[in-house]
């Protein structure tokens, strides 16, 4: 049976569309109004709220909590001090990515880990004989993302601490008399925060945020807007950019952290000074240079996009809804040299962008390639160039 999040009673009232999707079996709004692009612009130019409660949440406590996580997570959790959070991932023992999530460190031996897919038993098995408690607290908390250039002003009116909270830091605060965890995190690539709140108080906290945000044109945004935002931010999504390696039926469906663009998480792997599940396989990949793919951004040559549509009498579409299928990337000889996993028209960049995987020797920024697509029922290609990500990276995000 479908379940709802702690914010649902209020957010459903604000949803004029009745359009939902199922996010890991929980009801999640696709959009709140007729115009998801307007919701998108709330985040890029004002402030929006997104219900991110369906993420799995695991509480990990005890003297060996750090030991458990440092042996499980791709990124070095020992560098995450209490009050900080880390975006991270975890792999199977072949060094293929399973899931991603954010680890919030509340104290030396108290963590909250979010996950896109269920992972409790996997961590429990790694914790055998360790002094550590693992608890699934997914339903106990609601998580509300408050994102956009005005998010700080809105939240600072409720919690002065928001004013100076640094990127990926978090702290305990109070909203409407309720204890919350306020973190400078999000999935939009913009200035933004998330509030983690006990389920029973979720609606009261949401109401306070909406009231404080009203003079700033706050509005809830749904998954359609989020998809455009996260692609602009160059943020990968499970089951779009990659699949859980433990559930894949073929190695072709698996990617390593480096292939997925997570090479920056791998400090200490090449020299063997840091060990975690899969690290030895990843070390060999780094040393032997056996990565099959490199993840890169691609940007479309808009004049070419115009041309290929106008030549067949069509108006060139510019849709902020991501393409629902994978497209091949070709070189000038029409040989397949990669594929595009996410593709969308970016309203702030005024061009089509994509997240792609290419042969590592073709990943240097500015490499010219062709993206296959069907126009007027024929396969054709459009000129693209590889580009670093994030595509959209305003100074306010970290500033």
């Amino acid at each position, binding site marked *: 049976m479908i379940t709802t999040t702690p914010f649902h009673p209020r957010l459903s009232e604000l949803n004029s569309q009745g359009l939902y999707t199922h996010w890991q079996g929980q009801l999640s709004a696709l959009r709140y109004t007729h115009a998801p692009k*307007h919701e998108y612009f709330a985040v890029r130019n004002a402030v929006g709220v997104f219900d991110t409660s369906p993420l799995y949440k695991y509480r990990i406590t005890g003297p060996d909590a750090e030991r458990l996580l440092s042996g499980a997570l791709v990124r070095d959790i020992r560098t995450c001090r209490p009050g900080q959070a880390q975006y991270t991932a975890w792999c199977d023992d072949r060094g293929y990515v399973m899931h991603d999530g954010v680890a919030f460190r509340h104290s030396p031996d108290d963590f909250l880990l979010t996950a896109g897919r269920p992972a409790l038993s996997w961590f429990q098995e790694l914790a055998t004989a360790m002094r550590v408690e693992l608890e699934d607290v997914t339903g106990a908390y609601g998580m509300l993302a408050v994102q956009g250039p005005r998010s700080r002003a809105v939240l600072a009116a409720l919690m002065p601490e928001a004013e100076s909270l640094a990127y990926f830091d978090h702290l305990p605060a109070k909203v409407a008399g309720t204890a919350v965890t306020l973190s400078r995190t999000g999935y939009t690539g913009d200035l933004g925060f998330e509030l983690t709140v006990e389920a029973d108080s979720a609606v009261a906290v949401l109401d306070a945020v909406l009231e404080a945000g*009203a003079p700033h044109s706050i509005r809830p945004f749904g998954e359609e807007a989020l998809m455009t935002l996260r692609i602009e931010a160059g943020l990968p999504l499970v089951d779009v950019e990659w699949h859980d390696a433990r559930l894949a039926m073929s190695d072709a469906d698996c990617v390593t952290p480096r292939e997925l663009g997570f090479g920056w998480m791998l400090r200490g792997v090449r020299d063997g000074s840091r060990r975690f599940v899969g690290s030895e396989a990843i070390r060999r990949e780094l040393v032997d240079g056996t990565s099959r793919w490199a993840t890169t951004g691609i940007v479309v040559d808009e004049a070419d996009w115009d041309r290929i549509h106008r030549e067949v009498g069509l108006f060139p*579409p510019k849709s*902020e809804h991501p393409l629902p299928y994978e497209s091949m990337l070709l070189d000038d000889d029409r040989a397949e040299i990669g594929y595009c996993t996410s593709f969308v028209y970016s*309203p*702030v960049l*005024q061009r089509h962008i994509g997240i792609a995987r290419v042969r590592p020797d073709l990943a240097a920024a500015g490499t010219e390639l062709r993206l296959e697509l069907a126009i007027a029922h024929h396969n054709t290609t459009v000129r693209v160039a590889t580009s670093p990500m994030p595509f959209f990276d305003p100074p306010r995000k970290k500033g």
Partner: protein
Amino acid sequence: MDLDKLDRRRNFDAIVVGGGHNGLTNAAYLGKAGLRTLVLEKNDLVGGAAITERVSAGTLPSGFSFTTFSYALSLLRPEIIHELDLVKHGFLPLMMPSSFHPTGDGDYLLFGDDHGQNLQEVRRHSPRDADAYERYHHDLDAACRAVRPLFDNAPPDVFGSDPEDAVDVKWLVDHLRGVDRKTMHDVVRLLTGSAADWLDDYFEHEAIKGYHASSSIIGSKVGPMSPGSALVLLFHKMGEHDGHLGSWSFHKGGNGGFTQVLARAAEAYGAEIRLGAAVSSVLTENGRAVGVALEDGTELRAPVVVSALDPRRTFLDLVEPRELPLDLVDNVRRMKFRGVSAKVNFALDGLPVFPALPDTVDHYGGFLNIGPTIEYVERAFDAAKYGWYSEQPFIDAAIQSVVDPDMAPPGKHVMSCFVQYAPYELRGSDWTTERESFGDNAQAVLESHFPGFGDLVLHREVVTPVDIEARTGLTEGNIFAGEFLAPQMYFFRPAPGWSQYATPIEGYYQCGSGTHPGGCVIGAPGKLASRRILRDLER
């Protein structure tokens, strides 16, 4: 300052007169091609009629900004965004997600981004008009597609004798021969007929016709029943936002925000912009342009001088008419300007309330169209025929702070109202006398649709056609730098034989909205003129 530096401050490859959006666009393209380009702007702010100004008035709190004149973006040719790398300089068009049309009887039409919901909204008023609505937009899109190559290229010189002219004319004829006969007939009906007749062929509901007729009169001394109004409607449909034909956006910070982006782009390509530098005349030697003289007497030299001003200023003020062919001078003198548009800009204490939609703000995301039926708008036009302003005017309003909260302090709002009709010349009075009475009319109309509106008004600015002329230089306050009348378009814009951005004076060019394709914040004249200049320079 050494002599070399002095020389560089006085000698350029090209001088653009007028820092409106077309002048800036032209300068950016010329700069990009490597020309040392100077833009001379008479005001202390670039943008011409596309400016955003901070409002300071009495006790009004700070933080309100008005788009004094031009107020939204659509016609801008999308390729300019990429060719001038405008995103890098801050280009940010914000979606205007809705379009709201009170029907005059307490009800409304509310259109948005979801086609199916729009159909239901039409059907709520007229089931018959629902599929007509789809057919209407399809046919209009087809007409736009047919016209677009003409719109985005310089008109062929049908009067020319050069072999290249023959090639251009053949291109045009070949293109037109490829247009199917229904679309061709539609195009002719649009170019010559009235919006009312065009809309009658599709719709039965008066408010649905009224809604679609609103773009047929913008900036033009026509009513929706006048032949020629359908041309204005078609012209506006040529715009787009992110590929959606006929859609509008609100640039971050208003159209002044947009012209600041253009200015940064032009400067990044090496153009220099001088403010407070009014040009008094173009200097010529032996029938060729060699520079300009400023009103303060300074002389600046360049082998290319480009006027971004309207045709009256370009041909009658900046140069001696005696240097020009008589038929050109006659045509420019005859050209119709006849501004009929005014602005009333409001700073508001909060959002107005439309009684049938008391608990939502979503109908304020885009234009508020006050002109319930064609008859209402035509009656508003009647007054203008006889030299007076509408008692119950047509208003194209937008509460811009809903889309861009940075336009007003938190919780407060700015509302831009484009108001017609306001003829430039009043019979028996003048705009100094009538300004506030005109503003009162507009406010009263808003009050009738949004009861309590007047209580929200913190500040009101009335911008008459005379103000538009005085501040921007647009003759008679015509917002398009020459009316959109068939004899003033395409081959004939601004005058027969002079539609390709050159002038009879060698080295002297025109790039303002008085040239093809015409007005609105569009950039095409600036771009097409640069193409002509660079071709002449063989660059």
